[in-house]
């Protein structure tokens, strides 16, 4: 007897599905494929080159020779397979689509909100579009990326997602930050 299993997002029930987005808005982005790519020794540059050439994926820096690859265009299985095909033995690809939660913070005050938890300089001249980094937000490690002028993406470990959501809401309280699942 085959079983059908319903996938459950870590923030289901905590975040509503739709509401009016305020000027500053936090979107919980579900159904993202997220894979950690670990370059084999000596292959760091070639892996980086192959990854950045792929337009279907977004590549976030984690560490030397280590990236988070994010896409909403493929399933985790497909992403995993396509990366494996692309990188072959030059890298190890580890699916983290269930182990990570993606949030998108946008709005004119996004930097002011993040400054309440993040110690790096987020000034547009210091953290430019396309930048990404693993940073501490309050007490929680996240990967932060600037994807557009005032739009940041945050990747957080699933078990910490609820706590981070709470923290971000606190940080955004003065700006009436709205939160819901991205459609």
């Amino acid at each position: 007897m085959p079983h059908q299993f319903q996938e459950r997002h870590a923030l289901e029930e905590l975040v509503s599905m739709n509401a009016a987005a305020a000027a500053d808005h936090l979107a919980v982005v579900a159904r993202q494929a997220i894979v950690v790519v670990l370059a084999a020794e000596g292959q760091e540059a070639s892996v980086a080159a192959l990854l950045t050439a792929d337009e279907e994926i977004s590549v976030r820096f984690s560490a030397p020779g280590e990236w988070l690859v994010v896409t909403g265009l493929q399933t985790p299985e497909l992403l995993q397979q396509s990366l494996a095909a692309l990188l072959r033995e030059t890298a190890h690809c580890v699916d983290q689509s269930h182990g990570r939660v993606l949030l998108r913070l946008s709005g004119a005050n996004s930097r002011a909100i993040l400054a309440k938890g993040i110690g790096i300089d987020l000034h547009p001249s210091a953290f430019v579009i396309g930048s990404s980094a693993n940073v501490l937000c309050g007490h929680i490690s996240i990967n932060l990326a600037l994807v557009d002028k005032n739009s940041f993406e945050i990747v957080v470990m699933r078990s910490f997602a609820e706590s981070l959501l709470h923290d971000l809401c606190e940080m955004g309280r003065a700006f009436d930050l709205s939160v819901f699942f991205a459609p």
Partner: protein
Amino acid sequence: MTAYRLSAGGLVDRATSLNFTFDGQSMKGLAGDTLASALLANDQMLVGRSFKYHRPRGIVTAGASEPNALMTIGSGARTDPNTKATVAELYAGLEARSQNSWPSLKYDVGALNGLLSPFLSAGFYYKTFMWPAAFWEKVYEPIIRKAAGLGRAVLERDPEAYEKCWAHCDLLVVGSGPAGLMAALTAGRAGLRVILVDEGFRHGGSLLSETTPIDGEPAAAFVDKALSELATLPNVTLMARTTVFGWYDDNVFGALERVQKHLAVPSSKLPAERVWRIAAKRALLATGAEERPLVFGGNDRPGVMMAGALSTYANRYGVAAGKLVALFTNGSAGYRTAADLAAHGIDIAAIIDSRADSTEVAPFGTRVIRGGSIVDTKGRSRLSGITVERSGFEERIDCDAMGMSGGFSPVIHLACQRGAKPVWSETLKAFVAPDVGAGLRLAGSAAGLYALAACLKDGADKARTIASDLGLLTSAAHLPAVGEETTASFTALWYVPGARSKAFVDFQNDVHAKDLGLALREGFGHVEHAKRYTTNGMATDQGKLSNVNAVGILAGMQGVSPAELGTTTFRPFYTPVPFGALAGTSRDEHAAPKRVSPLHGWAARNKAVFIESGLWYRSSWFPRAGEKTWRESVDREVLNVRENVGLCDVSTLGKIEVFGPDAAEFLNRLYCNPFLKLPVGKARYGLMLREDGMVYDDGTTSRLSDEHFLVTTTTALAGGVMSHMEYCAQVLWPELKVRFCSVSDQWAQMAIAGPKSRLVVQALVEDDVSNAAFPFLAAKAVTLKGGLKGRLFRISFSGELAYELAVPAGYGEAVADKVMDVGRMHGICAYGLEALNVLRIEKGHVTHAELDGRVTPDDAGFGRMLSSQKADFIGKRLSTRFGLTAADRMQMVGLKPVEKDKDIRAGAHLLREGAKPSTLNDQGYVSSACYSPVLGQFIALGFLKSGRERYGEKVVVWDRLRGEETLAEICNPVFVDPANTKLNS
């Protein structure tokens, strides 16, 4: 208008009247007032009682150095004790109360201490209260404690919120007086990212009470123009109500912003206060200078104030602190105040100038007593007169307030918080900041410049230097034109001789000049000894007014220069900072992040009782209807696992994937037992040691392919093990080709344990899980019916036939629900940590209760796991030390009470039968204990000297803390299925 409010002038809003209360009495102030200026306007000079002698005290300053005017502001849980009225911004409805007096401020019983003052000299308490010995805690100390202290903390939950925030800039300017403002303008125009902070509620610093015109306009107008320009610059941030309290390494500054402390009704969206961490490439201290009091007889009488404060109250707040004011000065500043007050129509009783030869010009018609000194003061709740002495003649002069000016000390606090010692300047007769490097400079009065024009220029110049340091060229700043100024000067005067009554150095801690003399006499002449012995400078103002005078007096008495004596150490915080602001949002339930298992919802639906486990919340047990105690639930869960099958959430265990051609070699060096030959598709229990040979962590490690392993760790050490592995790989063995990735959050993992577990698992997965196809320690990727991919491990913590099934976290709940579903016909139950603990104790398995960091593999019964084949592994060498192999080490044993109905609990110690309890006779302890429903009695694991040789012997389980003693039999720690038949079935 009240009696002491001037009819015109000042930066207060005369149209906005604010009601407030002081000690229950209703008063009115104006918007723009501080609590202190409003109190003065209401003729409330007496504001508090001193610490030791309970002497009546009045407002002394108009700023952060205030020693006396400490109030309790607010009510209920919003009570703030020890608030300086001189910096508290007035708001409508503010409730202030005086402190340290009973029954009332005016009639304080504690003032009797004043009569006893000869007996309460510095350090008196070190010399007495020693007899009888037991009396200190019971009699003396409570009295002293009750009399001491200042305000009362309510210790209730604070209803207000706080937060923290980071800021980054090229230049942080601290203080927005003339130097700071010009610096911010200059740097801002040059394009630097500038933050200009000021502790006041209005930018401008001393300019707000300055009477010299700038560019032909009042100074306040210059401030307004400068601020409007700064507001238009996107690269400049203005922060008022913000005190920079600390300078830390790497030019990081801590600052406290009082976001809503000035509001009667704070917004729930904003914090009350906010702590900033400001990372500044450069910083400029434009913190001004502090006027010094004069140490003369009766100088603590309410109404004796700093001369500059009198000016500020008149010029900025439109308040006359008195109607007939005397001034006592050793320099030009006293004359300046006299001019300020006279300009407001306040009568000047006299200027007493300590210098016989001064040529300063007093306002027309003012009496000047050159070469005079004040030797005493009169008045109860307010000054009524002073006794002036000159050339042996004394004279009483009536006045209701007086200003004292003893010269100036640059405010260098922040610059000297990181170890740099203040340097004595003979020219300035003050301690100044040494060169502390390019990161931080001082400007204006903080750098010893006391003229307005010089301060404006210095601010601009220093900002240009900083801009050029950072590679920006700036043109010369336009400097505003400043009206005519007199040159500020003074002649140091540390102590005014001839005092008729106590001459105070530290007002708040009631340290007077004679206390310093006594300290010196008793050998406490070192400036730090004197401070500690007399408590001078240790009050809430940290000696802002008193320290330099104390140094001057001590140096004078020893016949040395203040340079030789030095000064005490400046340390954070510049002014006190609330706990709550520094804690920010991390408090209560949010003190630490919480981690949620992917099976949390499943457990909740099954009515789990949750327990904190590190950062995680884990299911502890699953009560069912009718069960009255946790034990009933746990016993049921245990028996059900032993008889049928149970499901337990083990997702919180650390899971680390290890890749690379050297993965096996790496693990072989990491663990004390061998891993090179672990076959693909198999798991192995591994023991990780510290380099000192003690057990660090344990877990199973599976080989998923030749160069791909999955390491599991305990929940508690998941992070630690990962870091340790990274250390080993990156630092110890960089030659090994190996990479790691934590997948702890990717997988939901459930233990399915019990004799019927195979039936349940087989109903779920496509793969054959029979004993033949999937024997004990098998570890493989499997496909669940319906196609979901998972991982299955035949491992067991309970000792039963058991599997651990891992599925992608998002599917965890659905799969767990399905397991329960298909398991229902086999009697499945959910079981939690408590049952798991019983199951593992019954089986003699260890956790961190046993592996507590002091235990060797052999202690825990794993001696045989230590590979002698391997050339090296972490911990190998030091595990052979004598002490780690000694025969009388404590070894893990099982314990069973001799009388079956007796209880054993963890934490008890072990004694030989008949032995007297003593550290020497201590034989060991109980590490874990539980009621075993299988055996129908309590059982325990413990560590006992040479324990493994002593099976069958009886030992006393000694729990003095709970008043229990139980005789127990020492046994093998495996209580259930020692032959592992169930495990392998």
